[in-house]
């Protein structure tokens, strides 16, 4: 590579000096194999479309608007195509809760394990055991740092699993706890984590009844990872699920969003930003019980963990084949979270919560549901943030506070690794 050695006082102002420019290098540049592969697939996909694009027998191309419609159609088809993991190796994006995670789950796990109980990909599976309806779920926790304002990996591991059961409408009963510990991990830290798990279990009314411990060599793990699984019973006849959302339904959140994710990011101390906020980690079974007791019209419940509220709304839109429209000004976000997000260029809609739920409720029960949420200590900040629409299916839109409209898509990439 030739380097420039021009002494130019105009460097900073960017004014190019005249003359004396050596010719750029020539020779045939290389090309990238993966790009060619992607293009081949593209060609296969659009085969036969060319005729439509160029209007058969006519020398003029189609008008712009019609061409754009075809492009949008094509995108839609590409998005509905069978998911396939294109990467050779797992990257951090596969764990971020966005598009890559979804592709991995559908292309690798669902495709192999496929069965009717797994297929809905809800927070917990709902099973019939000797006539009783039971919910079963599992979740692993790799949060870094292990201790953060408002909680630690211990209460996170209990609350997360309690909440996954609660979102299935189940009363959580029993939990398992599996520990993967790194050689050299301080026993005092482990004791502290386990004590906090027990406190969370007592608060949620569940018991940890079985467990497992593994130790790996130093450097093969990061301190302490925890897996919890849980079972609960479903005592009502409601069939909750994001696929049940109908046009006209109202979308509620149970409180300000993004607290957990922003807390973790700041707790890592890499950003030199300080804010007075803590994680919202909390058990939601009490809140769900009050909600379900208050109104019959609850269609779906989700806790907005990795990927945040935006991801949940997209799951609703896709699973139910409906549109979702939310109003930015109605979405509760603490000023500290908003401020940190503005500084860092992230959108609170995608930031994880660990003690907030999104509920889809029939229009006639919306007011009652909101009142029930607000009457519970975990739901004082609840708000109605949007509605379900018939059109356009599969798409989440946001009415911005500025007065415009935009799409809220699934997250691509990984802004905040290892938040739970």
């Amino acid at each position, binding site marked *: 590579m030739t380097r420039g050695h021009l002494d130019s006082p105009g460097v900073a*102002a960017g004014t*190019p000096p005249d003359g004396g420019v050596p010719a750029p290098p020539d*020779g045939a540049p290389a*090309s990238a194999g993966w790009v060619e592969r992607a293009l081949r697939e593209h060609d296969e996909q659009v085969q036969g479309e060319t005729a439509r694009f160029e209007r058969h027998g006519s020398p003029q191309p189609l008008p712009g*608007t019609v061409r754009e419609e075809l492009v949008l159609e094509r995108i839609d088809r590409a998005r509905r195509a069978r998911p396939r993991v294109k990467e*050779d190796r797992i990257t951090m994006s596969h764990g971020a809760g966005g598009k890559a995670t979804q592709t991995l789950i559908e292309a690798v796990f669902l495709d192999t394990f496929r069965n009717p109980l797994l297929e809905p990909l809800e927070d917990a599976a709902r099973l019939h055991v000797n006539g009783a309806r039971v919910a079963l779920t599992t979740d692993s926790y790799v949060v870094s740092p292990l201790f953060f304002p408002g909680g630690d990996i211990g209460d996170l591991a209990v609350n997360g699993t309690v909440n996954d059961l609660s979102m299935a409408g189940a009363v959580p009963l029993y939990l398992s706890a599996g520990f993967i510990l790194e050689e050299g991990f301080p026993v005092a830290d482990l004791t502290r984590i386990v004590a906090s798990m027990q406190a969370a279990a007592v608060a949620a009314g569940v018991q940890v009844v079985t467990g497992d411990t593994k130790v790996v060599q130093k450097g093969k793990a990061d301190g302490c990872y925890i897996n919890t699984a849980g079972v609960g019973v479903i005592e009502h006849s409601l069939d909750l699920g994001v696929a049940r959302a109908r046009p006209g339904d109202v979308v509620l959140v149970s409180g300000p969003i993004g607290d957990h994710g922003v807390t973790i990011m700041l707790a890592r101390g890499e950003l030199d930003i300080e804010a007075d906020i803590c994680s919202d980690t909390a058990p939601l079974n009490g809140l769900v019980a009050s909600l379900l007791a208050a109104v019959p019209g609850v269609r779906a419940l989700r806790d907005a963990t990795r990927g945040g509220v935006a991801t949940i709304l997209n799951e609703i839109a896709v699973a139910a084949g409906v549109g979702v429209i939310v109003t930015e000004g109605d979405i509760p976000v603490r000023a500290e979270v908003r401020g940190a997000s503005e500084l860092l260029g992230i959108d609170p809609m995608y930031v994880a919560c660990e003690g907030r739920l999104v509920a889809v409720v029939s229009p006639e029960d919306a007011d009652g549901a909101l009142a029930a949420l607000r009457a519970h200590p975990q739901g004082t900040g609840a708000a109605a943030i949007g509605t379900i629409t018939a059109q356009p299916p599969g798409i989440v839109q946001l009415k911005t*506070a500025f*007065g*415009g409209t*935009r799409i809220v898509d699934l997250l691509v990439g990984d802004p905040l690794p290892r938040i739970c």
Partner: protein
Amino acid sequence: MKFVDEFRDADKAHALAARITALCEPGRQYKLMEVCGGHTHTIYKHGLEDYLPEQVTLVHGPGCPVCVIPMGRVDDAMALASDPDVIMTSFGDMMRVPGSNGSFFDAKARGTDIRMVYSPLDSLKIARQNPDKRVVFMAIGFETTAPSTAMTVLRAAAEGLPNFSVFCNHVTIIPAIKAILDSPDLRLDGFIGPGHVSTVIGCRPYEFIARDYGKPVVVAGFEPLDILQSIYMLMLQLSKGTSTVENQYSRVVPWDGNPVALRAIGQTMELRPYFEWRGLGFISHSALAVREEYARFDAERLFSVPGVRVADPKACQCGEVLKGVLKPWECKVFGTACTPETPIGTCMVSPEGACAAYYNYGRLTRQRVREASPS
């Protein structure tokens, strides 16, 4: 929230939009280019185009730092990073930019030590903590980020840090704007000037656009009302037939720029005779290299950099999109082979890239326009 909500007031936006509409002459089309990717992002994120009359079109310019990095430079960086003695540091935006053998993220998954930093100064910390490794910072960006790279080099020199260097890919905005102005296939009426770059270089370097090309320039801030006001100021100039450089972002941008930052750049870096831009080709005097005096912090001098050239894939029309000749959706592979998950072109990588912004936020705006139009 203070200093944010004031700049997103819907009532003020409606008032400005009405004044913009009133300035439109019947039958005339207005094409305005926002040079900076930060503006593109704001426009889409807040749905700003909803406010604009049909006669006013925004063209998304080349001012997204990762969008203009050619694939060959990514491959060069990857070659540097693959040295087992090297720790590569990079801004987050750069991590997903595809080279011919995948992105930094893919390389990281294969075991290459690439770390994300929020400031180039963090690289010095990593260098101090790893004295047996050589830390290379992948420096990208326009005059906005060049001063922080310059300050980092100066700091490293003051400390006498032996294991830190910069792989310099800084580019300068003015030659790119000039290339666009000279491009025969483009007709623009005015420019929304890049706010962040101007905090460093000031407003004077744009005067040739108004003087020699007769196009008005308004340097703009990054909140939606900033941009709407800048469009109004441009429309006002166009209606009067004037072309001058105006500064809408005067709360941040000094007319003469930031002399301290300019001095730091001038002290550590010099213009390259030419540099390849993604989609725009070679542009003379459009990029910066580390000066001879700081050769010990210049990765290009310390390592053997292969100097790979990779052709932009034929189907990828990033160049036309960067020049504003094509709308993102008009690119052949938009949304099918090239998506935010698997970007082929750099315009699809960064949230500041026109294609990614349009794919993620904008698709419906177009749909609505289409439904509203009688055809």
